[in-house]
């Protein structure tokens, strides 16, 4: 299979779906860029993810907007109920604050409020996460907030393969989908088929299996967890690593099965700790998987603080392998000693 970056995988997903379905449009700030000029001078999004789409599909389908996020999301949501399949780009997910109403009170609630009449096939793409020294307002991981909201689906891909398949699913999906791309992952490479394929939502990916503990991790943290897992293995501790891929819907079954086998759970997430995805999984297991648990559930997250700018602080802010290892060891140690 050809190797591609996540950026290329995402671009390919959009291009292929746009070829297949003329109702798919892309809308956002500078998704073409460069005064809407096509060709050489277009930028294709601040991180280049929509590069070339304007050239292939024209300015009627790849639509630059003013800086006006409420109108971007509102326009996309209105277009979605009226027959298009818009992919709206929010740029940094941190900007949800200037358009949250259109996401959570409008798009997310249409179907329910309107008694099942609306279909809102809307994808909102946004960059998530820390790691590029962008400071407190451009580095947040806000998937917990979206996951809290009924009516939204939330996707957090960790690999180029998943990114393509999940984005295609998001575009084909009839519900509003929040699609969160970790900015540190755009350049990672992985095998990505040339043809279009969809990965269903709510199906976790088990990347590694071990008997001592289960690690649930998302997005960039999947890579950190895998690193921690190898280091743990060299110490004789074998862990399962689960990537839920979507936080809403959540593949509870797979997580519970893994915990049933390992009896121990560590959740790794770079979001803030309170009322978060980490607590969500921990609580779900403390309820439905209580009988499996042999040790406290540990959460490795960012602290309850905004994202700091200074590199040393930002690096300490984001979960790293050492903290994951310490968390696993803190709950595996006892039993290992006992066994």
């Amino acid at each position, binding site marked *: 299979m050809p190797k591609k970056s996540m950026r290329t995988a995402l671009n390919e997903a959009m291009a292929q779906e746009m070829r297949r379905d003329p109702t798919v449009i892309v809308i956002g700030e500078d998704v073409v860029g460069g005064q809407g000029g096509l060709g050489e001078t277009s930028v294709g999004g601040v991180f280049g993810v929509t590069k070339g789409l304007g050239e292939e599909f024209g300015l009627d389908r790849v639509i630059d907007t*003013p800086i006006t996020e409420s109108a971007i999301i509102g*326009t996309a949501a*209105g*277009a979605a*109920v*009226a027959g298009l399949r818009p992919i709206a780009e929010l740029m940094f997910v941190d900007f949800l604050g200037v358009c949250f109403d259109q996401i959570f009170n409008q798009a997310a609630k249409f*179907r329910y409020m309107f008694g099942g*009449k609306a279909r809102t096939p809307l994808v909102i793409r946004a960059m998530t996460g820390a790691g590029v020294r962008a400071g407190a307002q451009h580095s947040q991981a806000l998937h917990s907030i979206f996951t809290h909201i009924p009516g939204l689906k939330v996707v957090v891909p960790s690999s180029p393969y998943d990114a393509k398949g999940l984005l295609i699913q998001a575009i084909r999906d009839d519900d509003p989908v929040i699609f969160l791309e970790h900015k540190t992952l755009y350049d990672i490479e992985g095998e990505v088929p040339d043809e279009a394929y969809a990965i269903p939502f709510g199906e976790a990916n088990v990347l590694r299996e071990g008997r001592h503990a289960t690690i649930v991790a998302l997005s960039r943290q999947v890579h950190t967890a895998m690193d921690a897992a190898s280091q743990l293995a060299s110490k004789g501790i074998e862990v399962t690593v689960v990537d839920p891929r979507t936080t809403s819907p959540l593949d509870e079954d797979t997580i519970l099965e893994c915990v049933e086998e390992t009896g121990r759970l560590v959740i790794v997430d770079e979001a803030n700790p309170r009322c978060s995805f980490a607590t969500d999984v921990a609580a779900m297991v403390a309820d439905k998987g209580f009988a499996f648990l042999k040790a406290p559930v540990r959460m490795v997250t960012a602290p309850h603080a905004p994202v700091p700018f200074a590199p040393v602080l930002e690096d300490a802010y984001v979960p790293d392998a050492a903290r994951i290892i310490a968390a696993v060891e803190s709950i595996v140690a006892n039993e290992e000693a006992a066994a």
Partner: protein
Amino acid sequence: MQLERGVILEAYRRMALIRAFEERVGADSMAGLIPGFVHLYAGEEAAAVGVCMNLTEKDWIGSTHRGHGHCIAKTCDIEGMMLEIHGKAGGLCGGKGGSMHIADLDIGMLGANGIVGGGPPLAVGAALAAKRLGTGGVGVAFFGDGASNQGTVAEALNMAVVLKVPAVFVLENNGYGEFTAASYHSNGIDLGARAAGFGLPVLKADGSDYFAVHEAAAELIDRARTQGLPGFLEVKVNRWHGHFTGDSQAYRSQEELAAARLADPIRLLRERASEAGLIEADAFDAIDQDVAELIERASVQAMAAPPPALSTLTTDVYVSY
């Protein structure tokens, strides 16, 4: 513009329906027979109907918290609306929406909206879809003077101008946002002129005068339909009732309230059409009779109807999940 008899009668019917609907809902609400709070459109009928008589089912409207009038003007089913407002099974939204969330996407009604300023961006989106899909439809956004100060409205205006979509903004200026007058909430400035600053053609119409609203709306809607360009219509209207049922409007003078009642758009339409010798009293009376029966039936039926099944509590959150 000379309107046909049939058009005038249909306009009259919709306006009479709105009036009767609102008076009934208002009374039932005050009597505690309707759950929650309702915002009545009575007095403003010519705005919604004057605009919507220019629309068909392929056109979209986005509405407000004061949405019953827009729904009726856009031909939502009266019985379904009444059931919805009573929170009953068979309501237009299965009883899950209520007064502030009535919608009927099948006929281009994008929904009443509980969020002030929530609708205009959605109408721009519907206009974009109509343009892209080549349906020939337009998107109309109704909103109030109070909503004019909401950032989302300014954004929607600019967005429509930039994207060059067939969107028409209809500012229903009744002079109040809740209990606060426009002289305060926007310092009494000309809200239509403010919109013109965004690069939109702006027309104004007296919202007591059905013909004036219809004509101005026709001009902007035609422009949107044929040239794909947005426009802005400011309609001065009178809010007869309080912000919601139960608001005594102590903050408005008796003179002001009396003047509002005098400028009754339904009576004025009827008078104008009679004076012009266009339509005889009988025809109007017959409509009034019909309307009264329909509203009575809808109301009685809604009160007697069963509530939604408990099993619907968690259905239709998603298409699939």
